[in-house]
């Protein structure tokens, strides 16, 4: 069983150590982490709603790939690994959402300050 999981390893972004943890915990027969997956799903949705598709691409991609890996792991009966991946996907989704919000505010501030600079030049120039 352990060997099977190690062969699956390269398909995900997860490091080998996490795979091993999953394998070890899986032996204790973890229930399917459906609730965890729902939370991760919601976090990714939240990131998309916040504009992460445009404003936090890398962060959103990381969250999505972990979410997909978690779903796959659960489908294959590896609940412990699915749990780990879902937990990580959730915080990754949170980061993507907050990154999008921060990026939006940063761009707006930069734009307004640029406009302010132009206005200052107009005022000082007779």
């Amino acid at each position: 069983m352990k060997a099977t999981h190690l062969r699956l390893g390269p398909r995900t972004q997860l490091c080998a150590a996490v795979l091993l943890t999953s394998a070890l915990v899986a032996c204790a027969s973890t229930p399917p982490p459906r609730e965890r997956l729902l939370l991760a799903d919601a976090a990714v949705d939240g990131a998309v709603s916040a504009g992460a598709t445009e404003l936090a691409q890398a962060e959103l991609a990381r969250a999505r790939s972990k979410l997909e890996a978690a779903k796959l792991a659960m489908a294959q009966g590896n609940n412990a690994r699915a749990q780990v991946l879902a937990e990580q996907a959730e915080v990754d989704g949170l980061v993507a959402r907050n990154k999008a919000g921060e990026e939006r505010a940063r761009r707006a501030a930069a734009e307004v300050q640029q406009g302010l600079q132009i206005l200052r030049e107009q005022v000082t120039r007779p």
Partner: protein
Amino acid sequence: MRSTRYLIACLLLPLAACQTRPPHNEALKEAREAYASASLHPMATQAASNEMAQARQALDKAETAWAGRRNEDETRHLAYLAYRRAQAAQLLSERAAQEEVLKQAAVERERIRADASGKDAQLARQRAAQAGDRADALAQALQRMQARQTDRGLVVTVRDVLFDTDQSRLQPGAQRTAEQLAEVLRQYPQRRVRIEGFADARGSEQYNLRLSQRRAEAFRDALIAHGVSQDRIEVQGLGEAFPVATNRTTEGRQQNRRIEVLFSDDTGLLKARS
């Protein structure tokens, strides 16, 4: 299979090392640093207190797991969660900071706009005051020449324009008036004048028209001699028309022999006689 052996070795190593103080864990160290960095953000308390508490909780969980079980993989996972929660909290703080910048910029923009319109208004008042001063100066200059305000505009009347014996040379009084008018016209370059010549009723109408025309032209030539451009001056001889006094007395006729200098408005427009 070599990797499997390696992983098992990794897992067993911390267990084998019987230490009182937890050994170094790189993932945990990174999570601690991320939390410390997030908590140092000036907006952390104000904008991300809940998120900071969650990050702290996640970090504590990772620390406890590492101190208790020394499980590298479990700790790496928990440290990862703590690291990302700290990062999420910091992003929230930074967003609040950027929004603050945005708000300040909007305030500043309004201030600059208000300033600018204030300056514009001040400038307009200054210009109006200057225009007023200029108008006053013109009125004073013309007052010295006994200008009259008529429904056509300001009119300066000049009597004793020409020597009776030499009808091309201005009398001294008319010469002085021409100098003053030339000075006024130099100061008010947008104004124009019409010089209207008049005669008394002695002699034929044709003669009086020619005479009045000559009076007006003599005065025009004096203005030109003092630097007034010819295209700012109109000349018209009106003969014995429009008398201002009776032609039956010497004094009356003397008053009717005159020129009238009509000033245009600011736009150079001269009103015609109705």
